[in-house]
């Protein structure tokens, strides 16, 4: 079976995708406290103390002309000079962001400059439109994740666009879930999350259900037979590839394990209704391509692929 085409697509994780898609203006704080360059330094005491902030943009007629920090203010205090204007102490070497810069640029800049806050200006008019802190970035990302989750629940048709975009861009999305072994209480969590995600991406319901079967059976095998493992799904333009790996005991004879009815599940597990020996055959039957390899003492790895344009009868 040939089911991967190396190099023909990029892999992006969801949060990575978000920092490229979201703009500074989506997360920045818009209410900015500013000072004028012709204000006396002594007047900053109240502003800084009252707002508990470490720096202020200096603005003249909407344009950003400098930045005055708490350090600048303390420096001025320490020198015990007589009062002077903000413009004489402010720093004019400005690190700024544009409001339409992608978030990934802002994160890089916050990191590189070590600045706590960066003023945001409009690219055309150069007017100050906001301020950006690391906190804003984190809050913005969290809010977006939350909104995405809501949309997943409420607006499938909207999220359904994503799959079309993946298909148009020849990109791929990658999801991964850790499955702890022997944990029957949480068993199935990874597969339910995967199922919800695929549904929200707009994958056809019958295909989602076939992937759910395969993923659940593989997850249960991780829970029952191994100390744990990983389930991953790669959504490619034409197919979804499910991969399940573990570092468990491995399977002595894979052909035998693939036989319907073959099971080494212990008695107490059978009492829970597992151990019919149908899991691996189910995975094979529900997928359009199936590979399994195992090394006794090392672990097991299986790969099942699902063609997105395939029509098949669920009943067979």
């Amino acid at each position, binding site marked *: 079976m040939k089911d991967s085409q190396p190099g023909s697509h990029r892999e992006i994780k969801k949060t990575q995708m978000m920092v490229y898609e979201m703009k500074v203006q989506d997360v920045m704080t818009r209410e900015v406290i500013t000072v004028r360059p012709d204000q006396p330094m002594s007047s900053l005491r109240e502003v800084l103390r009252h707002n508990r902030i470490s720096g202020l943009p200096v603005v003249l007629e909407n344009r950003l002309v400098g930045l005055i920090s708490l350090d600048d203010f303390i420096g001025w205090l320490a020198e015990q000079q007589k009062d002077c204007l903000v413009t004489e102490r402010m720093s004019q070497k400005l690190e700024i962001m544009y409001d339409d810069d992608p978030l990934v640029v802002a994160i890089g800049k916050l990191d590189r400059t070590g600045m706590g806050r960066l003023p945001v200006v409009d690219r055309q008019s150069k007017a100050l439109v906001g301020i950006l802190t690391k906190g804003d970035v984190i809050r913005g990302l969290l809010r977006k994740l939350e909104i995405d989750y809501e949309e997943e629940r409420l607006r499938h048709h909207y999220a359904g666009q994503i799959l079309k975009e993946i298909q148009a861009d020849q990109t791929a999305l990658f999801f991964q879930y850790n499955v702890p072994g022997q944990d029957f209480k949480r068993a*199935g969590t990874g597969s339910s999350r995967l199922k919800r995600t695929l549904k929200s991406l707009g994958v056809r319901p019958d295909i989602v259900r076939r992937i759910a*079967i395969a993923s659940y059976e593989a997850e249960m095998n991780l829970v029952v037979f191994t100390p744990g493992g990983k389930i991953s799904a790669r959504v490619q333009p034409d197919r979804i590839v499910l991969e399940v790996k573990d570092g468990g005991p491995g399977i002595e004879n894979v052909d035998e394990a693939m036989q319907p009815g073959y099971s080494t599940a212990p008695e107490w597990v059978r009492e829970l209704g597992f151990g019919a020996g149908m899991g691996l055959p189910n995975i094979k039957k529900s997928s359009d391509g199936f590979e399994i390899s195992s090394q006794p003492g090392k672990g097991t790895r299986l790969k099942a692929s699902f063609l997105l344009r395939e029509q098949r009868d669920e*009943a067979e």
Partner: protein
Amino acid sequence: MKLSDIVEKLDLEVRAAKGRLDTDVTGVYASDLLSDVMAHAREGNVWLTLQSHQNVIAVAVMKDLAGIILVGGREPLAETVQKAEAEGIPVLVSSLPTYELSVRLHQQGLGGTFDNDKKSGTG
């Protein structure tokens, strides 16, 4: 036929997800082996089982089942109820054994998954 009609006609008691009974039931599947249900139950089926532990909920979620009926007077474990509420999977209980319950469901016009492939109009 709605799940709420079945609850009423067969005198079932609802143990979880009371608010989710307004769904259409497409048929019935009865089994106590989870991977058998994974293989053969259909979307919208009601599932008859004597397994009362929480893993049945994951199976119902994965297969988009309409609900679970615990047979023979079995009661769901506390974790099962909790998970069922969280996932919105109705858990119903009946004192009847699987066969008697199946017969009554059939009398209500519900079919299984096997017959349904050949003749339609049963559900």
